[in-house]
């Protein structure tokens, strides 16, 4: 699978340092370290600072995680507390399983 070679570009939209955004960020970091070690890039955007960016990625809920690369764009909203859902949502499970098969 070609996607394995790619760097994952993830963008996390938050609005201030709320408990939800803090836990979302820590959860995300944890999952990425576990499943995408070294192949990911996380960009955190605080909408309180850059509100003009909300429209571009069609953000309406926070926290929202956007997978920019690989395409297609996928979005996960919430504090990312459910690991399985996040992995399915980002399509990471398949990556992991393909690694396992190797």
């Amino acid at each position, binding site marked *: 699978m070609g996607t394995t070679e790619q760097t994952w570009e993830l963008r996390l939209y938050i609005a201030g340092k709320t408990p939800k955004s803090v836990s979302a960020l820590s959860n995300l970091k944890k999952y990425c370290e576990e499943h995408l070690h070294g192949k990911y890039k996380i960009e955190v955007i605080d*909408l309180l600072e850059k*509100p003009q960016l*909300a429209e571009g990625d*069609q953000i309406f*809920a926070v926290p929202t995680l956007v997978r920019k690369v690989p395409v297609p764009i996928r*979005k*996960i909203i919430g*504090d990312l*507390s459910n690991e399985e859902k996040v992995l399915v949502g980002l399509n990471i499970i398949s990556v992991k399983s393909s690694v396992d098969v190797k």
Partner: protein
Amino acid sequence: MTKKINKLQDQKKAGLLPKSRTGINGLDEITEGGLPVGRPTLICGSAGCGKTLMSIEFIVRGALIYNEPGVFMAFEEKADELAVNVASLGFDLNQLIEDKLIRIDHVHIERSEIEETGEYDLEGLFIRLGYAIDSIGAKRVVLDTIENLFAGLDNQTVLRSEIRRLFQWLKEKGVTAIITGERGDNSLTRQGLEEYVSDCVILLENRISNQISTRLLRIVKYRGSVHGTNEYPFLIDEDGISVLPVTSLQLDSAVSTESISSGIASLDTMLGGAGFYKGSSILISGTAGTGKTSIASSFANANCLDGKKCIYFAFEESPHQIIRNMRSIGIDLNNHIKSGLLEFHASRPTLHGLEMHLVAIHKNIKRFKPDIVVLDPVTNLITVGSVSEVKSMLIRLVDYLQNEGITVMFTALSLNNTFNEQTDEGISSLVDAWLLIRDIESNGERNRGLYVMKSRGMGHSNQIREFIIADEGLELVDVYLGPDGVLVGSAREAHILREQTGQALHGQAVSRKDREISRKRKLLEAKIAGLQTEFESVEEELNKVYLEEELKHKIQEDNRREMIEKRKSIKAKK
């Protein structure tokens, strides 16, 4: 006393809720000034009833008329789709966006692209909206339709509390907001939430009765303000939304004592000389084919000739038909159309609902500003509504026209029975003047009799006049009151003829007698002449004797004198 009242009013005014005018025709009248400033208003209704249009009109008119920039947050349509949709109303959305008067933010929610996991809130939406508002200094906000959030997201509890928070947040922002919502099964909205958190709720409906759909608007609630509570019909056309202006509940319209000719000189005489009052309403009722349209046309014609403006709403015939037909009685309406004094609006009653007709009539009157309005015939409207609906519509129309000082003439078809005459769509009590044309059937022919049933505020004739439609126009003729009662039509003609014959015969007799007399005189004169001659001859006879006697006497005298002379000479000789 008045000072006291003024004071009270001032006090009231001071505490009044500030309102933001929508700029939508008629809506500001119903809401008595517009939507509540700085508060959210819900516009709800089922699909296709005009929610989005009404809200975008609120934004656009706000920007154009009241110089209040607005944000339109669309959950359904994209900005360019919206621009195309409102372009048909003559709004250039893209230009307004460029001028920073309007900002459109399309929120795209695609369920398949979104996963939900754990806690979240809609702060992103708030920030986005807040940014949009701040970027153009918006005073007005529309969220269309917020329910799409529910379709895209699963966590209902979060959504409900967030929407509640959104309403609160909008209030804090101080923007006048419109939120649109789909109509639910048993509640005003699907979620049964927005109507409680909004300060004003407007319900739009599309009702179909007799296969004719009517758009209706009703204000369900309006916190802190009085408002009209009825259902008001509204119309969407090339000028946007127009809500039907409300019936003014007061009966305080100014009246005029000016008169306006009916177009038939003899009818004016029946009405006391000058015709109808300006700004009054006139009803002409009659059975089929009694010449109602002719009277109406002649009324329009006469006033157009006077330079007044007239609108003719025809519900039965096409303008061309009327123009052609009226030409046959010497009325040329085409001239007035060309000179712009007369306007025809013909539509089938079934074209749209009753209220739509009223809105259409209103719009045309507002635009054209006529002195005279003709509706021919109002009875046809019954095909799209019940008698009471037609009546209420006409009441509102008459009311409006009276306020504007416009004279209106209705024609109404009455059925051929006497009971019905009193209730021509129940408007006979409403109008100021009522002319009734009736068929008078006798001697195997039908004639038209016209009489003035009522004419408020002017002495009018109580006589029936025979109404004659001739090539030269309309005419009222005094019916013939003979020894056998009222005579009309050919019976009248026959009677007049009989009288003429009688007169001729009488004349003949008179002249014969005259001749007789002159003959007698001649005879007598002849006799007198004869006697005269006789007398002359007798006189002459008598004269002759007399002369002879005198002659004889003279001769005798001469003879005697001669004798004496002779005797003297003899004596002398001696």
